[in-house]
C-alpha cells in the first residue's frame, strides 16, 4: 500500500466521520432538549477527524484531499434519510452518484 493510498483512505474515513458529526449537529438544531450533548458528540467526532485529516495531509495534496472528503455528503444524505427523516429523492440520489464519480476520479488521480 502506497503512502498516497493510505492518505486517500484516511481522507475517506474523515468524510465518513464528518457525515456522522453533521447529523449530530443537525439533531442539536432540531431538539432543544439535550442540545449540548449532540453538539459535544459532534465536536468530539470533529476533533477525531482533525487528527486523522492532519495525518492524511502529509500524504496527499489538499486540493485532492478536500474533494474526496466530500463523501461526507453521501454519508450525511443516507443518515439524514434514516435518522432525520429527510426525503432523499431520485434527483438527490443522482447528485450523490455524480459526487461518487467525481470522488473516484480524484482518488484515482491521486
Amino acid at each position, binding site marked *: 500500500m502506497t*503512502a498516497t493510498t493510505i492518505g486517500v483512505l484516511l481522507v475517506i474515513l474523515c468524510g465518513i466521520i464528518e457525515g456522522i458529526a*453533521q*447529523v449530530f*449537529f*443537525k*439533531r*442539536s*438544531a*432540531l*431538539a432543544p432538549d439535550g442540545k449540548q450533548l449532540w*453538539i459535544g458528540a459532534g*465536536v468530539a467526532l*470533529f476533533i477525531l477527524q*482533525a487528527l486523522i*485529516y*492532519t*495525518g492524511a*495531509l*502529509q*500524504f496527499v*495534496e*489538499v*486540493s*485532492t484531499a*478536500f*474533494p474526496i472528503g*466530500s463523501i*461526507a*455528503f453521501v454519508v*450525511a*444524505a443516507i443518515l*439524514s434519510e434514516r435518522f*432525520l*427523516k*429527510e*426525503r*432523499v*429523492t431520485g*434527483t*438527490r440520489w*443522482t*447528485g*450523490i*452518484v*455524480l*459526487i*461518487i*464519480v*467525481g*470522488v*473516484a*476520479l*480524484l482518488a*484515482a*488521480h491521486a
Partner: protein
Amino acid sequence: MAASTLPAGLVFRLALAVILDTAVHIVWKLAVLQLPNPGALPAALEAASREPLFLLVAALFVWQLVNWLQVLEGCDLSYSQPITALSLILVLVLSALYLGESVDTLKVLGIGFVFAGVWFISRTDHDSSARSAVRQ
C-alpha cells in the same frame, strides 16, 4: 437557484461557511507543511502543538462551528451541506496559486462531477419533515 429565496441573513451565513471552510483547509495545509517528514506521527503531533498555524486552524474551526450551527437552525442538513462544496473551487484555485499544487484536466473533471452532484442535490426540495419527525 433555490438559495436566492433564503433570508439574507442565511445567505450571508452560508457564504461565510464557504469562506471559512476554504480558509480552514488552506491554513491547515500550510500548518502541516511545517511538520516533520511523513510517518513520524508522535513527533508530528509534538511539533503541531508548537506550531502557531494550528492555533489559527483551531480558531477558524470554532468560528466555522458557531456559524454552521446557526446555519443548521434555519436550513436542512441535506440542503445546506452541499452548498459548502463551493469551497472546492476556492481551495483548488488557492492551493494552485499559493501552495504550488498541480491542477490538470482530470482533477478539474473530478471536481466538476462533484460540483454537478452538489448542484443536483441543492435543486431538491429542502422543506423536509425532519423537524416534526424529531419532535415526535
